Structure formats: structure tokens, C-alpha cells
């Protein structure tokens, strides 16, 4: 039961003023600019864009500043902001085959055409704290080398040519949009992919990890992981043609997984897919593993009762804003609810005590 009460305005206002002061921190330390956050905490910015489901690095950096670095709070701010934006249309599907790759690796083919391009990766660093970063100093420029301008071929195409991997035939049906219609189950793969790409990184990672540990194991290889810029093209109704409106950085992961086959179809590799805003490879790999696990029905596999196979479970719990909203609301005043519980438990105790006394007499 909710009962409206008033009061606390002054306390709330003072709390928010103190929040502002604490956010700023000591005045003798330089204030962070949005440009600094955008440029130097770019992976945090990427996560906020991916899970906030709005590609705008300046807004994500502002949200991180306002949220004092609490990324879920920052994602919350972005989700709230995006509801105020009019929807001006949708893009043509981005063509990741034309990506200008910063990074492109394959764990399945050493000599993949286009090569293994590591990009600006944490891989192979020693994970030792670099105390040189604690002192300000100039960073040496990244080395450069002549580059081949041709787009990187897709690794899965090499398997596809041989027919030993399941194909992804193009389909231009209008995809369902979870931001426009209430979620219904079964959701189907396009809606699942939307939910996963904006889902909480930690949750999607843990679901993916559970499949690796044996809860609906699907034997994934990272066929290809690529990070880079793609153009976004939108139809302009007044002109009757499509125009590039900008470019975004995305991370794409294609996994190659163990086989399915049937009487009519010889065994072939299956695949999982991850595509996420920004340089976000942990999330993209996780998404691909969970996508693959959720395809059990379509691929004629058994439902092993594993959490990662349960579409409703995964999708209903992947969103950190829904989760934190429901979780954190329990700290808000529930005085009246609790009062009724208190009365109930007192009454139950009184009844039990009375019965014991009766029995004793």
C-alpha cells in the first residue's frame, strides 16, 4: 500500500547540493572536462553508449561526469535522455564487411587474408600497474606502416564457400523494436540481439561464461573479431535517396560453433553473433556466445535446462536499468508497507503465544 506523505524537501535539496560538491571534489584539483572524459576514458564512454543504447560520445561523457563515474547511473541518464528525442527514422543495416578496421583477429585461421591485426589492445600486456602513468609525460606516437585499403574479407565466408558453415541468408523484414513495443516471448532472434547488445556487460559476460563452464556448452571459436568504423546511411524522404549521416565505431564478433546436421543436411558449423556500439570486445564476444546458446531450438538441439538457453530468463534480466530500478526502489520509504507487516507478525506471534499458553493450562 502506498500512502502519500510530504516532507524532507529541505533534506533532499541539501543532499543534492552536497552531491554536487562531492562530485566536483576538492577545488584545488583541476575539473574534468567532457572532452577529457570522451578522449581518455573512451572505453567507459563506449560502454555507456552501448548499454544506454544511444551513440553520442559527448552525451555519454557528460553522463559519466554527472554520475561521478558510476556507469550504471550514467547509462540511466542516457536512457532517460533518449526518451526525449523524437525518432527521425532508421538506418539501412550497417555493412560491417566495409568496416575500416582498427583491429581484426581470427582465432581459427592463422593465415587469414587481411592478416591478424591486433589494434590498440590490452591483450599481451602484462597487467602490471604502469606507474609512469601516474606522472604526466608525453606519449610516444604509435608506429605506422603502409596499409592495404581493401576491406577485410569475412572469415566466415571462407567456410561458407565450402558449405561447412550454416549461412545467414539476408532478410529485410522490419525488425521488432523493444523500445517501442512491450516484450513478448518467444522473442525471436532479432529482438534477442537487440536486448543483448544493450544488455548489462557483466550479466551477458556471466551468461556466456556459464555456457563455457558446461551449462549448455556450445564449443565456440572466435572465427572473427573486428573493431572499426562503419558508415550509417539513412533514407531522406524529401530527396528519394539515402545519405550517409555519419560514422560509428562498432565491435563485431562471429563465433564458429560445433556442428548440427540431419538426415538431409551433412554436419556443419553453427554460429553466434555479437555486434555492439564502440570498442567493446568483451561484450561482443559474450553476446555471440549467448546468442548461440539461445538458438538451441532453431538448430534442433536439446533444451538442457541451462540458464543461457532460457530466452525469457536471459532477456528479462539482461537490462541493468530495469534491474537497478527494481532493486534500488526497495531502499525508498516503505514505512506503511512495513507497518502492516509489523502488525501482522505481532498478531501471529500473539496467536502462537496464546495457543501455547492454552496448551500449558
Amino acid at each position, binding site marked *: 500500500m502506498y500512502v502519500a506523505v510530504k516532507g524532507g524537501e529541505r533534506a533532499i535539496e541539501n543532499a543534492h547540493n552536497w552531491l554536487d560538491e562531492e562530485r566536483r571534489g576538492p577545488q584545488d584539483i583541476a575539473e574534468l572536462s567532457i572532452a577529457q572524459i570522451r578522449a581518455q576514458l573512451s572505453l567507459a564512454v563506449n560502454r555507456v553508449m552501448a548499454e544506454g543504447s544511444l551513440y553520442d560520445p559527448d552525451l555519454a561523457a557528460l553522463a559519466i561526469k554527472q554520475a561521478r563515474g558510476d556507469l550504471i547511473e550514467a547509462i540511466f541518464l542516457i536512457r532517460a535522455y533518449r526518451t526525449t528525442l523524437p525518432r527521425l527514422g532508421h538506418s539501412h543495416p550497417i555493412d560491417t564487411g566495409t568496416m575500416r578496421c582498427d583491429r581484426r583477429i581470427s582465432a581459427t585461421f592463422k593465415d587469414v587474408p587481411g592478416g591478424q591485426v591486433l589494434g590498440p589492445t590490452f591483450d599481451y600486456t602484462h597487467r602490471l600497474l604502469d606507474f609512469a602513468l601516474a606522472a604526466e609525460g608525453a606519449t610516444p606516437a604509435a608506429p605506422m*606502416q603502409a596499409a592495404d585499403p581493401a576491406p577485410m574479407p569475412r572469415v566466415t565466408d571462407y567456410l561458407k564457400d565450402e558449405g561447412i558453415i550454416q549461412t*545467414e541468408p539476408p532478410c529485410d523484414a522490419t525488425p521488432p*523494436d523493444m523500445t517501442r513495443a512491450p516484450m513478448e516471448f518467444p522473442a525471436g532472434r532479432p529482438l534477442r540481439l537487440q536486448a543483448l547488445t544493450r544488455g548489462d556487460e557483466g550479466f551477458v559476460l556471466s551468461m556466456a561464461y556459464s555456457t563455457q563452464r558446461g551449462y549448455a556448452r556450445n564449443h565456440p571459436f572466435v572465427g572473427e573479431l573486428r573493431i572499426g568504423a562503419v558508415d550509417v546511411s539513412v533514407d531522406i524522404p524529401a530527396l528519394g535517396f539515402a545519405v550517409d549521416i555519419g560514422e560509428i565505431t562498432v565491435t563485431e564478433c562471429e563465433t564458429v560453433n560445433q556442428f548440427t546436421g540431419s538426415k538431409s543436411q551433412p554436419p556443419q558449423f553453427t554460429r553466434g553473433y555479437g555486434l555492439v556500439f564502440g570498442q567493446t570486445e568483451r561484450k561482443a564476444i559474450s553476446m555471440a556466445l549467448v546468442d548461440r546458446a539461445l538458438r538451441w531450438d532453431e538448430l534442433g538441439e536439446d533444451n538442457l535446462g541451462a540458464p543461457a538457453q532460457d530466452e525469457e530468463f536471459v532477456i528479462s534480466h539482461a537490462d541493468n536499468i530495469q534491474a537497478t530500478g527494481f532493486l534500488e526502489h526497495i531502499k525508498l520509504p516503505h514505512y506503511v508497507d512495513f507497518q502492516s507487516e509489523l502488525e501482522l507478525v505481532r498478531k501471529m506471534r500473539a496467536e502462537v503465544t496464546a495457543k501455547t499458553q492454552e496448551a500449558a493450562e
Partner: protein
Amino acid sequence: MQGLQADQKLRQAWMGQLAKAPSDNLAKLFDSFVKQPEFTWLQAPEIGAVMVRGRAGGTGAQFNLGEMTITRCALRLASGEVGHAYVQGRDKAHAQRAALVDALMQTDQAPALQSAILGPLAAEAAARNTARAQKAAATKVEFFTMMRGED
């Protein structure tokens, strides 16, 4: 959207170029070259979102990846040409300059704009892309076999 006329293809290319140009760079080139032409708004700059779509497996069924911010506007020059802009981000001045260039490119100023604005923007974009590609190329792995375990 197939089979565009040659002039439509050109316009598509410059509109894309203007949208992808960093706002500051466009502002610098535009403001030093063009005297602000007279125009009226057909649609004042409006900030909104576009839903970006991807394809499952890169080539399969479409799905909604997430939104991006966009600013659009349309204007008419005093001489009658109409310019449109659809530009990533929330920068109304960027959209206005992009629409002005789009309109002016339909006038006899087009060759001058091409060499003063669009040419330099294209060169800047190519230099940016090449620099990143060259840094990426420097991180390409050269494998060499240490020992084969067959013997």
C-alpha cells in the same frame, strides 16, 4: 534506392561528406570562404534519434542495434535552391552549414565550393582514415614457425 541519376549520386556524396566532417573543420573552411548567404528555414534544425540497424551474422536478418543522435534541417536560399542536412550529433550549426553548402552546390558557385570546402574536407577525411589504417597495419602479426611437432 538503386539507379540514381548522376547528379543525385554527386549530391549523395557531398551530403555524406558534410555529415561526416568534424563540425569545427567545416566551420573553419565555410566561414573563411562563404559570406553567410540569405536563406529562409523550411525546417529549422531539429535534434532527434535514428535507430541504427545491423544484420544477424553480418549478412542475415535485420535487428535494431541502438539509436544515434542526429540533427536535421532544410532551408531555401534567396535564389531558390533548397538545401538539406542530416548530420550525426546535436550540433545545429553543423547542420545549418551542411544545408547551406548543399544548397550552394546547386548554384554556379559549385566549382568554387568544391575546391574551397569539399576538396579540403575530403583530403582531411582521407588523411584521418589513412593514419588509422597505417597504425593498424603496424600491429599486423608476422608469424614465423619456431618448430613443428611432427618429427
